[in-house]
């Protein structure tokens, strides 16, 4: 028993050390965001003994663009993820519970649509968006991001649904439930963690997507990725500012992740849901 407890404590300490090592770059950026620019570039680096300042956050938040960008980010990431889920749930259901010979091929084809580097299709898409007045609109970007994340959503939901025992669904069907009832009343509660974690994953991917959001927006629909690009590499020292702005961009997603932790972790289970 002693050996068991010691190894648990050892594992615990190891886990904490490793976790801090992994999060270290972010923690370092957090620390840097409270320094002056001159201090941020100093060597040897300072850890606690410097004049802490909120100037960087003040500069980032003053002017109100942060909030407009935050709102756009929420709309784009939330909207595209919702759209992707709306389309992915039926598709994943069909693939998990009504598979055909083509199902595997279809899944792989969906993944293959992500193989063309976005930068290669910029001009055709830009031309198309120009002609349809979709440039610099939230909906324009959201549709494209939804299509981009759709294969991921389908894959994850497919894997999640496969863990749901088909017998329960069949039992519901035999009891006379319609498809909609089957989806909404039986499947959804069991797969809710899976839905939540899929939503969170594609939400995060859309939140940080920096190619389409930068190229298809200019002023009205500019999300946080564009806001950060305004603080990146100007002439002069900018590390403290960039760190502050990055923290402001990471914070919302981190907050959502913290609040929905239990749901999300349950949803990533590809093993048994007893």
């Amino acid at each position, binding site marked *: 028993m002693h050996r068991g407890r010691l190894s648990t404590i050892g594992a615990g300490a190891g886990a904490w050390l490793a976790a801090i090592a992994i999060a270290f770059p972010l923690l370092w950026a957090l620390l840097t965001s409270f320094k002056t620019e001159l201090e941020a570039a100093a060597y040897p680096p300072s850890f606690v003994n410097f004049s802490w300042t909120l100037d960087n956050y003040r500069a980032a938040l003053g002017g109100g663009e942060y909030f407009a960008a935050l709102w756009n980010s929420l709309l784009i990431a939330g909207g595209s993820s919702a759209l992707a889920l709306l389309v992915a749930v039926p598709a994943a259901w069909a693939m998990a519970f009504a598979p055909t010979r083509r199902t595997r091929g279809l899944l792989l084809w969906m993944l293959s649509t992500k*193989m063309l580097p976005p930068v290669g299709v910029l001009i055709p898409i830009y031309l198309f968006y120009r002609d349809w007045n979709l440039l610099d609109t939230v909906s324009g970007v959201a549709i494209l991001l939804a299509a981009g994340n759709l294969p991921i959503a389908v894959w994850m939901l497919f894997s999640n649904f496969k863990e749901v025992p088909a017998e329960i669904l069949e039992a519901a069907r035999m009891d006379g439930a319609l498809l909609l009832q089957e989806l909404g009343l039986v499947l959804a509660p069991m797969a809710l963690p899976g839905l939540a974690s899929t939503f969170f994953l594609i939400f995060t991917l859309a939140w*940080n997507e920096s190619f389409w959001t930068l190229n298809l927006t200019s002023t009205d629909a500019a999300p946080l990725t564009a806001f950060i690009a305004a603080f990146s590499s100007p002439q002069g020292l900018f590390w403290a500012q960039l760190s502050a702005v990055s923290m402001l961009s990471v914070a919302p997603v981190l907050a959502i992740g913290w609040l929905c932790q239990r749901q999300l972790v349950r949803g990533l289970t590809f093993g048994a849901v007893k």
Partner: protein
Amino acid sequence: MRGRGRLLVSPAVALLLVSSILPLVATIWFSLIDYRLLVPGTGRFVGLANYVHLLTDPSFGPTLVNTLLLIGMVLVVSIVGGLGMALLLERVVLGRGVLRLLVISPFFVMPPVSALLWKNLLMQPVAGFFAWVSSLFGLRAFDWFARAPLASIGLIVSWQWLPFACLILLTSLQSFDREQREAAQLDGASAFVIFRQLVIPHLARPIAIVVMMETIFLLSLFAEIFVTTGGGRGSSNLAFLVYSQAMVRYDVGAASAAGIVAVVFANVLAFFLVRAVGRSLDA
């Protein structure tokens, strides 16, 4: 049943068809013409000239190799590291929520920003954090991007994807049947044997999923390369090649040709990948 299934799948298929086939066709068309944005009077049909120019470029071969090396590096480091982290996390009971948040935090940072932070705050040989740490041991700072550009980029990208791998493997580990493991322990099997014979096969599916997902994203990786080395010798990959044709030379024809080559390459890679891990993907 089958008809209903097809109906349910159709919205997804339709959306993907429109968003991928149309641009693909347009890209193929552009790859066959000479279309340079900055030069007046271009737009003629030139057949396969763009492809020839691309494939005969002496840097093309190394670019392909770099693409594979980078993907391989990131897969290995993120999965092995993620598995290690997951094994540690599994045993922890206290403060698990905070630990999980710490571990997943790299995934939340915008990729170009992570690359900038790593390059300038950590890896910079004159004033970076790693330079300070090596000075504590009396060593000279390692010049990351001059001596090992591809590995440095690989390190940064592995750091970004490790949380993803770790979380998926962790939840799979946590769902591993306690009874089976305890039964094996009672039978006298060592931890190592249990790990190899029982745990690894159980993890085959999540590992396969992580491999497929990461590969898809890593094929289009270019922002980190752009921000750190600007695609110099030994650190350019196929996606960056497409980017430099499109956004530096503004040669849409060449960029489209490179994009099509990238698609072909990705499909070949996926074929082999599916052969290797495909069986684990089905239940």
